[in-house]
């Protein structure tokens, strides 16, 4: 798993894709801090920065994960991985963590504007860290979904568009919930919704059930990807 993690991470930064994704997210963080916090001269709006970052992250993650599994299948390098003495789960975990690490770098760089703001005012670091952890959690869940979708196809473009579609669906789910007449359907949608799961973190709360929810999503999709990888041997 470590070997694959290292290789994949190197691959991200051997091509522009890693730099572009990290730079884009870091720049948007900076812009949002500038546009919301600096402009209003109030550190109480930091949650707004993170809630608008939610959409941007969901859009950038498909680009990070699109090559994860599909590239190996296309270049036949999966033969090296699958005939090596490593299990499919550790292959997938290596891939997942490398994609997640790129996202982690971007999110961590997103803390820089907050540090800058600290010199000028006194933001609530509880809220900032809560948002940061929440960002990592829904990001991790989205990365695992992206890795899974990239294992379904050999085309990076299809993987990116597919993951993007899922991301948009997850983003718009809350609007959907309000339009539903059936109460139990609304409950289900709210239960799945990444946005409503993320809300407690935006307020600087550490919501254990949401943590478990996001970790479970990651575990499920890592497992599904491993099964998908395994199933390729059978057909």
């Amino acid at each position, binding site marked *: 798993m470590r070997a694959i993690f*290292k290789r994949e991470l190197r691959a991200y930064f051997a091509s522009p894709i890693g730099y572009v994704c990290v730079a884009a997210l870091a720049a948007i963080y900076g812009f949002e801090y500038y546009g919301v916090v600096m402009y209003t001269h109030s550190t109480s709006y930091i949650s707004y920065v993170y809630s608008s970052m939610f959409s941007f992250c969901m859009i950038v993650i498909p680009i990070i994960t699109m090559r994860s599994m599909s590239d190996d299948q296309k270049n036949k*390098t999966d033969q090296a991985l699958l005939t090596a003495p490593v299990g499919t789960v550790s292959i997938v975990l290596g891939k997942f963590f490398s994609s997640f690490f790129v996202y982690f770098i971007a999110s961590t760089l997103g803390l820089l504007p907050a540090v800058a703001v600290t010199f000028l005012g006194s933001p609530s670091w509880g809220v900032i860290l809560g948002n940061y952890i929440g960002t990592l959690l829904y990001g991790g869940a989205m990365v695992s979904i992206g890795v899974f979708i990239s294992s379904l196809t050999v085309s990076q473009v299809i993987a990116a568009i597919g993951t993007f579609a899922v991301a948009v669906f997850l983003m718009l789910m809350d609007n959907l919930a309000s339009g539903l007449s059936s109460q139990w359907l609304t409950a289900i949608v709210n239960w799945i919704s990444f946005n409503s799961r993320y809300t407690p973190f935006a307020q600087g709360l550490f919501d254990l059930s949401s943590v478990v929810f996001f970790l479970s999503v990651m575990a499920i999709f890592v497992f599904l990807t491993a099964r998908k990888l395994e199933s390729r041997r059978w057909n």
Partner: protein
Amino acid sequence: MVEVKNLTKRYGSNLALDGVSFTVEEGTIVGFLGPNGAGKSTTMNIVTGYLSATSGSVTVFGKNILDEPNEVKKLIGYLPELPPLYQDMTVKEYLNFMYELKKVSLPREKHLKEICSLTKIENVYNRLIGNLSKGYRQRVGIAQALLGNPPVLILDEPTVGLDPKQIIEIRSLITSLGRNHTVILSSHILSEVQAVCQRIIVINNGKVVADGGTDTLAHDLSQDHRLILRLEAPEREAVHAIRELEHVVDVYSLGEKEPGVFELSVESTPDADVRKPLFALLARRGWPMMALKNTDLTLEDLFLRLTSSDSFTQEPVRSEEPEEIKAIHRGRLNIDIEELIQSSQEEEEQETQTEEKGEEDHESDI
């Protein structure tokens, strides 16, 4: 030791492998021969654990690939048809990655150096794989398979894309590896298999159609004990004299090939060698022998025969089979060969006739 039993692989309705069984002993080089799409790569992919068989079992040194996949994979070095190379890595990075991935426990620097000098890739060690030529990529692929000195090497068309000099180098590398490794290599280059392998398994339409030693397979399969003799002697007299020899079944002339030199076909009983008495006879008579060759099938003939004729896909031909079964195969082959000879004779006759005719025409012109 690699043991494959009754391997069957189905891709949807397409039966890619149908009951493939073979055993490869330690320290032998086995050639997997077959036309494109015969099931060579599929078999190799199953043995290495990349694919799963629909049914059947693969055991390597007594370990089943399904029960202990990681243990078995450690024992096998695999070079797939398309070397699994990451284009965005240098050779050094790639080999280091594979070293870690395969959990090799040998001293890293020394081991990598050894393998690089074996496969002669030291001079491209720091170059990006994406910029390497096909030959070098193939070598990096072989280097990757050698990592960790696995006792079993499975090489899928290892010399594809190499230039003739490299082919010879890689062949000698494989031969030297064969001394202490079990090597299974696939190829459709027959001379390669003949040069490198001790044993050949011919596979066609997902079935093993022949299995035996490189030297004996052609001989055993042909069982056609005919010698083609070219000698400078009076035709009729020579035919009669040779027919008198012990163990000789039939002698007939194939015509005059050079001025005063005739070609004769000498058929003997199986398991008898008539070359010595034949030589003695010719020496006594003072008839110079211009050429002598046997009519064993060449590997090319064998290959075409085994993979083109449908009658041979029914049951595998094995050189270690009991006599009765061998005889059946022999019978079948003999018929084919006789037909072949007849047709070739007819052609030759026609040729000589036209030649004669041409000569006559020439004479009449004069």
